[in-house]
């Protein structure tokens, strides 16, 4: 029996009624191509099956462990420096590798000064189940944009990946911009649940951490309601 959109699915379930646009279907986390049956998807994570027109499918669950997916923007901790590559802890089962040459303006002679314990905001270049995830700090035009090393002054907290995703969903969750109206701070929210916060006052950092942790236990509607009160 095939799972339907909006249903709760568990790993091993099949999904067959796939819509495609020009023969292409875009697959987000929690789904895998089924080799045994043509034009069907395997569900690999427990959660709700979601669909976005015209051809995007993904699974939304409450898992605590982060599973890397190509294109994710993550915050990672440098744990080891080996030659030209860094081992970065992004909360997944395996450490990700980040080349020192994958920074803006880096050359063989002039590499960025990254030490063990530093934080990076990077993009996942590839994430196959058989290989270690690979990070980059530049886009396809070799520009850094917002990616790169994060300053040593901030604080790092771990949220659940679900909560991190909720914070980034600006349409439904106004928490970050409401905090931004009141406090002076900068933040890097990784899809992996690692969040780096830096503010002028340490007190503000604690306020933000507290509010992010509290928001985890409230629905988007409640958050929106209480944010509206703060002017």
């Amino acid at each position, binding site marked *: 029996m095939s799972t339907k959109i909006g249903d709760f699915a568990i790993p091993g379930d099949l999904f067959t009624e796939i819509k495609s646009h020009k023969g292409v279907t875009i697959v987000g986390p929690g789904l895998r191509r089924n080799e045994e049956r043509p034009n069907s998807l395997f569900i690999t994570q427990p959660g709700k099956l979601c669909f976005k027109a015209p051809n995007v499918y993904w699974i939304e669950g409450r898992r605590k462990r982060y599973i890397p997916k190509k294109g994710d923007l993550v915050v990672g901790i440098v744990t080891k420096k080996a030659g030209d590559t860094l081992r970065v802890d992004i909360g997944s089962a395996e450490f990700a590798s980040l080349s020192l040459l994958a920074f803006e303006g880096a050359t063989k002679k002039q590499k960025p000064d990254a030490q063990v314990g530093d934080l990076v905001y990077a993009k996942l270049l590839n994430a196959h189940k058989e290989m270690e995830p690979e990070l980059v700090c530049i886009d396809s035009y070799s520009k850094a944009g917002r990616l790169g090393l994060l300053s040593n002054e901030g604080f790092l907290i771990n949220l659940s990946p679900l909560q991190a995703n909720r914070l*980034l969903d600006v*349409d439904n969750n106004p928490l970050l911009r409401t905090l931004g109206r009141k*406090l002076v701070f900068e*933040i890097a929210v990784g899809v992996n649940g690692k*969040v780096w916060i830096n503010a002028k006052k340490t007190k503000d950092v604690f306020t933000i951490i507290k509010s992010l942790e509290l928001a985890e236990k409230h629905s988007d509607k409640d958050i929106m309601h209480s944010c509206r009160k703060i002017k």
Partner: protein
Amino acid sequence: MEDNSKVTLSKSILDMKFMKRTKERVLKEVDDAEGKAMYSNEITDEMKKAGNIVFVDTSLSNCKDLIDGRLSFGGMNPEVEKLMANDYAKRVEQIEKKKEKDVTDEEMAKGYSTVVNTISKKFQNKKNRKGFVKPSEEDQY
């Protein structure tokens, strides 16, 4: 002609002017047969039953239209805020605009319904306003 497809026409006949279309067809058949023979050992059964949909992997950010998580507020990091102005600020502006409009619509509907209520009350006479109307004596018989 389809029945005796095994019969091959000689090259000189195919070269004749009126055989132009047949010649094209024959050449295509030969080409296809050659191609099949060439790739038959490369196309496996797995490839044949793999289906016709191409699956492309993407991150959750693209699925749910999430924003870039690197943000700065209140002039903490002017560099980041400059980059934010291009996408984040525009998106927030759009949402606020939508929300403002939503609220006014809602209020408008609410206000309108109360107006309708008060006006309709005005047209009701005292008898109709009562919850229970005592049946007249004629109805009892």
